[in-house]
Structure formats: structure tokens, C-alpha cells
């Protein structure tokens, strides 16, 4: 009986449920409190910093020999900018750390921080695209005069011809507001100095512990072995916790400088101001369609506001270059032109957030399909049918190779689940009664589990991608797998234990996964980009398979049979032919303690494995039904259906959980959440009273249908599923709103579609029709 495919309750949960989780703040006891003094202005020259007479206060001048964070991309169109860990001569966004104070407790640290006065000569802030790209725009960084930090271009030879031949050209301009990942646990770190070893242990709420160690050691200029980074229990990340932030560098510097334990626990306001933001994009796109709805070509101008700095290690290229490469999505067309720019502004740095460019590019393509369908008089489902990719491997116009998927099938499944014909009748009746219901669809691909080739193609200086696993069965028959991935809520330890259990024939409760500690795990890249199940899972499968071979070899020698005849299951080694069994624990003990008997196997049961795949595409269709209250502009989601294909499900309950959470964040992107800067670059939404994540009251119940396509591109046959929910939901919701409001002839191209925006559109439509 297989453990894979079972909704096993998570092994992680009992301690978390009892309040025995260990998050960073729980590890801060006895450490001095650190508080950052942040710039109240978005742009300006620092004229001076007044420190109080007493107390530990440090500024950039104190950080002698500390380098700036300087992420690199090896592309001619990339302009590197340096991020000082404390602002030096000038500030470039509101919330940038300018000084740091240390005191005995948090309250005292806050008191001390209030006594630091930063004198800034303000400059005009560059906040949005118009300001950054306009004629004579002020440069946010002197090294990037046009405010473009990265620019990608592509043009296939037949684009112009395709537009010339088109029966219909659809031109759209889409905007996504600025969002934040907003993990419920904000950032934080505790740096403990060990005077004996002269070494610092940094406990930090992060997704990439090894990368953080590399980054901090490089910036501070010491050997990596002088630092251990531990990611303990992490209260959500969603991408926000994968970059190297200045605060962690300063924290380690303080621990070494003061030879003292120090803790920085970010508050929510700081998290809004100075962690990482995301989205804030404008996509201007034209699509050329044949009369039968066939998409012939896309021509796109993509702009991503990347904020004041480039994030380390993935750089500010992550949004624009993914947008460029993946805009074609699930559609089959061959002519493609695009220009994609990362534009710097005096706003908080952007970093990857669940979905990265894909929520926006999916919104773009899915709005495009609906608008084209309407203009050409084709049903929206039918136009997708005519354009979805259906032969594999599929090569996109940007050269991406899609492995087997079920694009059309998931869409048909979602259409069926929604029962569209019945809905259309209900919609008509509701309209007659003055109620506005709409249905919307969104079909998309989700590129997951990609290894070094994908990152190398972006010209990255630091090329992430592979995962190493060290796996051992100990003499008692228990298994330890040390992974470079770093889960933070995904239940990865449970899923990997199920996978390993199947390979080794032991129950998952005998498998311990060790993660998130640079002292205890092989160098690896952490958990992001829907990669861990695919890549760390693949490495675990290979390593466990190798250990299983050793185990079989030893068991076979013990039972005097051939290794091929041994089967591992139920914690036993079965010699099928001779009907003998041995407990796996006994075999394991012999492998270590009687190794002289098994020269063919070698001593012990330990293996390392590497997995570095090219990547695999998951796919899904989201469909939803909404009701729009035309008086208030409020949107209620009545049904939300996800038909998805992420290959085989290791733990279906965990997969569904990933989809639920992703969809909630996608709905938030579509309807609720928006970070707003005023024209001076001051953030107006720096509290949970102003920034509105959905509560249970706003969430529909999510219906999920699974399809399983077997792909050779992933050795576990599992594809990544961490981001799909977030990618697909905004387009489905917005398409449904437009459908609901079709009597008004309204189109919607901006998210979040807040009540205010929807009311504005309705008001304008009514004015036009009455005027």
C-alpha cells in the first residue's frame, strides 16, 4: 500500500497546535532589542543625523568595511544599483533604514529610536510610471538616468505580417495595483554571538537560509563558516522572505560588533513600509486575431515598477523578465513581440510574491480572450478552445518548452462544474429582477520546479535551482533526510516523508526531515517558485532509492536470496520467493554494525542525491460566479471552481490547502488589497486598517477538481502547485465582474476592482448612455 496519494494529517502540526511552535520571536529571550530608525521621506539628501547622548545608536558611518548589497544580472540591459544596508548620503524610499538602536527591551529601544533625528533635504519623489519615464524625469539612482534598471526585448520575424493579416486587433491596457505578501508573521531575526567560537547564529524568518548566509558573509566580508543561519518555524513567506534584507546584515554586524545577542522583530508597520512589495504593473498589449478567433500574434509593452532597489539574489529582473518570457501562457501562437522594463521609483523594493508576473499576465491574456470573443461574436469558452495548446511538448514563441498538460480538459471540467447553461438562465432571470450575476474563466499555465537552466537563461549572477539531499537510515531503522529546501507552512516535511516512506518501506512517522539550518543541511536554495515538492522531492526520491538498493542488498545477503527479489514494505524486507521476512530495523542495524558481512553494499545506509530538472508546467482553469451590487460596487463571489492538473498528488489534502490559500490571495489581488503611495511617496496604507486582506467573510467556498497528467519532466510525477491559486484567480474574478456588468457595456482593466472603481465605471457608463 502506497503512502503517496493519502491525505495524511501533517507531521508538523501537533507542536504548532499546542502553542509549542518555535518562531523567531519565540527565540529572542535574553537578547537585546534592535529597532531601526527609518526615513520619513521618499527621497532626499541626508544632511545630518542627531543621536541622543546616551544609548547605542549606529549609522552608516559606523559600519566600517561593510559593503552594499549589489545584485547582478549578466545582461547588457541591466543596470546594477547598490543598496547600502543603512542609508548613507541619501534616502530613496519612505521606510528605508537610516540608523539602528539597541536597548535592553523593545520598549526602551523604541524610546531610544524616537530620540534619533534625521535631517533630510527633501527631493521630489518619483512614485509612478509617468513620473519615472516622463520627459526629463528625475533619476532615482544617478547610475540609471532613465530609471530603467532592466529591459528585455523579443520580436519574432512575422509579427507585423500577422497584424496586417488580422481580422481583429484587440488593444488593452491593464494595471495591477501594488500588493504585499503580508505573511502573518512579519520579518525578524535573532543573532546570537558565541564568544568561544567567535561565531554568530542567526535565527531568521526566511525562505532561503543558505542564500542568506552567503549574502551576509559577502556583504560583511567574513567566511561563511563564521555564520550559521537557522530558519525555525516560519509564519508564512509567499516570497517576501526570500531576499537578503539589509536588516539581517545589520543584525549580524551588531552581534559581532557588540559581542552580544540581539533581536529584531519587525512590526506590522515596518513590514508594510520596508519589507518587499509586488505587482504594480502596467501591461499594454495588442492581440491580432483571425476571424475565427485564432490568436495570431501578441505585441506587448510591459512595465513593472520595481521600487527603489533590486532584490538579492533574484534581482529586479524577476518580474519583467518572467512577464516577457511567460506572457503567451497556455495559448498556441507563434508571432510575439514584447518589450518589458523594470522601472525604479522612490518606493519600497519589489521582490517575488506568490505568482510573480503571472497573475498579471494571466489577467492580460484572459481579458484579451474575453474581449476578442465579444468583438468576434464567439463564445468565450469556444475562443479558448480554439487557441489552447494541445500537443506536447509545446514550444512557446519565447522558446519555453511545455511538458504534457491538460489545458483544454481542465477548462471543460470547470465549465461543466459551473453548469454554464443553467447559470445563463439564472443570470437572465436575475437581470430581469435587477440583479447582476456574471461568470468568468481563467486558463493558465504555471511553470514550476525549474532548476539551474531556467535561471541561467535569465543571465543571473547567482544561479539557483538544484537541490541536494543527504539521506540516511540510521541503525535503528529510522530515516533522516537533510534538505536544502526550507519549508514554511507548506507541509513539505509530511509530503517528503510520504514519498520517502514509499521508497524505503517504512511508515512516514519513521522519517524525519531536517531543513532550514545551514549547519545541518547541504547547500540548497530554499522554498519558493513552486519548486520544493518537485526538486527537493525528486532529490529525496533518488536518494531514498539509492538507500533502498543498499538496504535490499544487505537484506538479500542476510536471507541468502537475490537483491532483486526483495520488496520493502510495512517496515519489513520481504524475500518474496522464499517467503522470508526481516524487520527493516534489523537490516539497518546489520548494515552498520556487521558491515564486514556485506562488502558488496559498503558500510552504512547513507546517500546524497542531486536533482536539477528543467521544469514542469502545471495547468488549471479557474471559474467563478459573482454578483455585483451595482448600487455599492461591492462584489460577492458566489462560487469558485478550480480544475487543476499538477500531476500526481503526494498528499491531496496539502495540495488542496495550497490551492485554497493561493486563491484567497488571488481574490485579494482582484478585489481588496492595494498599497497606495501619495504623490510624495508616503505610504498611505501602512496598517491593517487600511490594507485589507480578506477575512473568512469575503471568501467563497472553493470547489476543486483534479486531473492527473503523467509527465516525464518530473521524476516524482508531481508538479508544483504553490502559486497557481494566486495566478488564476484575479482573471476569473474580473472576467466574471465584466460579464455581470455587460448590460452596462463596462470593461474592467484595473485591479483591485474596489467598490469605488466599479462604481466609477458604472457611473461613467450611465452618464454616457444618458448623455
Amino acid at each position, binding site marked *: 500500500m502506497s503512502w503517496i496519494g493519502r*491525505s495524511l*494529517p*501533517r507531521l*508538523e*502540526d*501537533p507542536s*504548532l*497546535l*499546542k*502553542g*509549542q*511552535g*518555535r*518562531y523567531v*520571536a*519565540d527565540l529572542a*529571550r535574553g537578547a537585546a532589542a534592535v529597532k531601526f530608525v527609518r526615513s520619513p521621506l521618499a527621497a532626499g539628501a541626508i544632511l545630518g543625523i542627531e543621536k541622543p547622548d546616551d544609548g547605542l545608536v549606529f549609522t552608516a558611518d559606523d559600519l566600517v568595511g561593510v559593503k552594499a548589497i549589489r545584485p547582478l544580472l549578466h545582461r547588457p540591459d541591466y543596470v546594477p544599483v547598490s543598496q547600502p544596508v543603512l542609508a548613507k548620503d541619501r534616502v530613496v524610499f519612505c521606510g528605508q533604514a537610516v540608523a539602528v538602536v539597541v536597548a535592553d*527591551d*523593545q*520598549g*526602551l529601544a523604541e*524610546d531610544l529610536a524616537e530620540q534619533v533625528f534625521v535631517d533630510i533635504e527633501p527631493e521630489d519623489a518619483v512614485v509612478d510610471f509617468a513620473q519615472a519615464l516622463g520627459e526629463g524625469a528625475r533619476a532615482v539612482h544617478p547610475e540609471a538616468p532613465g530609471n530603467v534598471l532592466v529591459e528585455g526585448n523579443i520580436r519574432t520575424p512575422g509579427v507585423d505580417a500577422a497584424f496586417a493579416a488580422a481580422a481583429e486587433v484587440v488593444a488593452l491596457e491593464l494595471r495591477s495595483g501594488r500588493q504585499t505578501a*503580508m*505573511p*502573518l*508573521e*512579519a520579518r525578524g531575526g535573532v543573532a546570537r554571538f558565541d564568544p568561544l567560537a567567535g561565531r554568530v547564529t542567526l535565527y531568521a524568518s526566511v525562505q532561503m537560509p543558505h542564500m542568506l548566509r552567503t549574502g551576509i558573509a559577502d556583504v560583511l566580508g567574513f567566511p561563511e563558516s563564521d555564520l550559521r543561519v537557522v530558519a525555525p*518555524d*516560519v*509564519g*508564512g513567506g*509567499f516570497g517576501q522572505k526570500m531576499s537578503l534584507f539589509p536588516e539581517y546584515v545589520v543584525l549580524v554586524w551588531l552581534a559581532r560588533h557588540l559581542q552580544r545577542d540581539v533581536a529584531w522583530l519587525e*512590526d*506590522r508597520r515596518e513590514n508594510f513600509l520596508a519589507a518587499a512589495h509586488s505587482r504594480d504593473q502596467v501591461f499594454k498589449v495588442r492581440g491580432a486575431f483571425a476571424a475565427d478567433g485564432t490568436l495570431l500574434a501578441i505585441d506587448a509593452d510591459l512595465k513593472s515598477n520595481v521600487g527603489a532597489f533590486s532584490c538579492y539574489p533574484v534581482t529586479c529582473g524577476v518580474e519583467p523578465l518572467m512577464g516577457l518570457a511567460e506572457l503567451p501562457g497556455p495559448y498556441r501562437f507563434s508571432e510575439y513581440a514584447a518589450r518589458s522594463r523594470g522601472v525604479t521609483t522612490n518606493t519600497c523594493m519589489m521582490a517575488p510574491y506568490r505568482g510573480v508576473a503571472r497573475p498579471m499576465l494571466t489577467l492580460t491574456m484572459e481579458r484579451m480572450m474575453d474581449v476578442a470573443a465579444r468583438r468576434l461574436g464567439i463564445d468565450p469558452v469556444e475562443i479558448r478552445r480554439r487557441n489552447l495548446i494541445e500537443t506536447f511538448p509545446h514550444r512557446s514563441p519565447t522558446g519555453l518548452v511545455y511538458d504534457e498538460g491538460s489545458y483544454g480538459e481542465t477548462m471543460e471540467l470547470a465549465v461543466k462544474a459551473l453548469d454554464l447553461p443553467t447559470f445563463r438562465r439564472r443570470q437572465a432571470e436575475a437581470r430581469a429582477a435587477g440583479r447582476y450575476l456574471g461568470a468568468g474563466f481563467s486558463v493558465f499555465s504555471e511553470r514550476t520546479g525549474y532548476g539551474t537552466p531556467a535561471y541561467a537563461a535569465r543571465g543571473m549572477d547567482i544561479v539557483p535551482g538544484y537541490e541536494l539531499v543527504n539521506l540516511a537510515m540510521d541503525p535503528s531503522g529510522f530515516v533522516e533526510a537533510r534538505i536544502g529546501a526550507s519549508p*514554511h*507552512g*507548506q*507541509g513539505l516535511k509530511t509530503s517528503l516523508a510520504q514519498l520517502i516512506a514509499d521508497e524505503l518501506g517504512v511508515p512516514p512517522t519513521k522519517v524525519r526531515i531536517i531543513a532550514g539550518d545551514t549547519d545541518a543541511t547541504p547547500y540548497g536554495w530554499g522554498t519558493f517558485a513552486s519548486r520544493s515538492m518537485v526538486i527537493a522531492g525528486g532529490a529525496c526520491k533518488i536518494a531514498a532509492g539509492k538507500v533502498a538498493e543498499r538496504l535490499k542488498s544487505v537484506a538479500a545477503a542476510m536471507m541468502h536470496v537475490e537483491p532483486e527479489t526483495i520488496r520493502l514494505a510495512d517496515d519489513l524486507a520481504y524475500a518474496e520467493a522464499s517467503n522470508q521476512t526481516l524487520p527493516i530495523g534489523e537490516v539497518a542495524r546489520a548494515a552498520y554494525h556487521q558491515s564486514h558481512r556485506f562488502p558488496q553494499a559498503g558500510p552504512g545506509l547513507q546517500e546524497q542525491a542531486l536533482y536539477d530538472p528543467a521544469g514542469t508546467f502545471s495547468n488549471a482553469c479557474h471559474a467563478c460566479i459573482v454578483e455585483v451590487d451595482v448600487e455599492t460596487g461591492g462584489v460577492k463571489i458566489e462560487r469558485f471552481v478550480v480544475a487543476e492538473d499538477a500531476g500526481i498528488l503526494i498528499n491531496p*489534502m*496539502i495540495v*488542496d*490547502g495550497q490551492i*485554497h*490559500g*493561493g*486563491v*484567497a*490571495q488571488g481574490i485579494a489581488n482582484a478585489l481588496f488589497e492595494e498599497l497606495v503611495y501619495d504623490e510624495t511617496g508616503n505610504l498611505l496604507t501602512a*496598517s*491593517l*486598517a487600511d490594507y485589507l*486582506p480578506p*477575512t*473568512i*467573510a469575503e*471568501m467563497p*467556498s*472553493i470547489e476543486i477538481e483534479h486531473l492527473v497528467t503523467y509527465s516525464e519532466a518530473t521524476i516524482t510525477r508531481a508538479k508544483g502547485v504553490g502559486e497557481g*491559486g494566486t495566478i488564476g484567480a484575479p482573471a476569473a474574478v474580473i472576467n466574471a465582474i465584466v460579464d455581470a456588468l455587460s448590460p452596462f457595456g463596462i470593461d474592467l482593466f484595473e485591479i483591485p476592482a474596489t467598490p469605488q472603481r466599479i462604481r466609477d465605471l458604472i457611473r461613467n457608463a450611465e452618464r454616457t448612455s444618458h448623455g
Partner: protein
Amino acid sequence: MADKRAVTLNVNGKDYRITVEPRRTLADALRDDCGLTGTHIGCEHGVCGACTVLVDNRPVRSCLMFAVQAEGRNVRTVEGLANGEELHPLQKAFWEKHGLQCGFCTPGFLMLATGILEAEPDISDEDLRDVLSSNLCRCTGYQNIIKAVRAAASEMRACQPSASL
């Protein structure tokens, strides 16, 4: 900074004699002075509910209450929910229904739900959703939280000794 005051907090039936500044929140006092770090802090401005504890059996945002205000009251935190190794029905249901991912919001939801279900064992579904909307979760989309609380509610009702017998 004002002078510190001696306060006795009764948490999960046990007295903690602590000395705190009057401005110290109950959340900080529980975590830092009593060492009960199961209560989490997500916003410190009363919105997220991660810090929810029960004070005299009513759900309270412990980041919005001062430790000194809790003197003489009966405070319950997530650490007091399980009976030794035996999980509370809510904890069990959250485990079985996958009501948590990162687990950061979980203590707050568990205490909020405990407060509701003890006060109103027969609460309607609509009211239940209404009350649960006081806390934020960023991971689960709430789908399995509501399932878990419903499951625990029926379990708790079934275990309740019926008054009429």
C-alpha cells in the same frame, strides 16, 4: 518610562508573579514574562487576532490589553487547551481537517473558537462565520478553518453531558 509594577497573572490556572511597566501589553507579558510564547503577535493594532486569548472566558486581543488590566482575571492561552497529551477537540479538528499551514494564526483561531463554542455551543453557521471573521489567516483561505471549527463544534456538543438526563 514609568516605574514597574508587580502583577500576578493567573494563566491557565497557574499564578505568575511578574513585574512589568504599566505600558506592557498582556501579549508581551504572556510571551516574555510568563514564557508562554504560544500566543502570537501579528500586528499589535488589534486587527489580525493572532494574539487572541480568553480573559474570563471571553476572547480578547491581548495586544490591546495591558498586563496590569488582567490582574485578578482568569487568562487562558493555547498552552492550556490540551489536557496533557490529549488534544482539545478543536486542536484535533484543526489537525485532521488541515486547518493550519504555517501555524502562526492558529493559536488565535483556536482561542477565538474555544471562546465562541463554550459560550454558544449551538451557534448557527452564519454567526460562526461572522465571529471567525475577526481573525486573519494568510495561508489557508479559511476553507479548512471553518470545516475544523464545525467538526469540533459537533464533537464538543456530543461530549457535553446533556442537562435533561
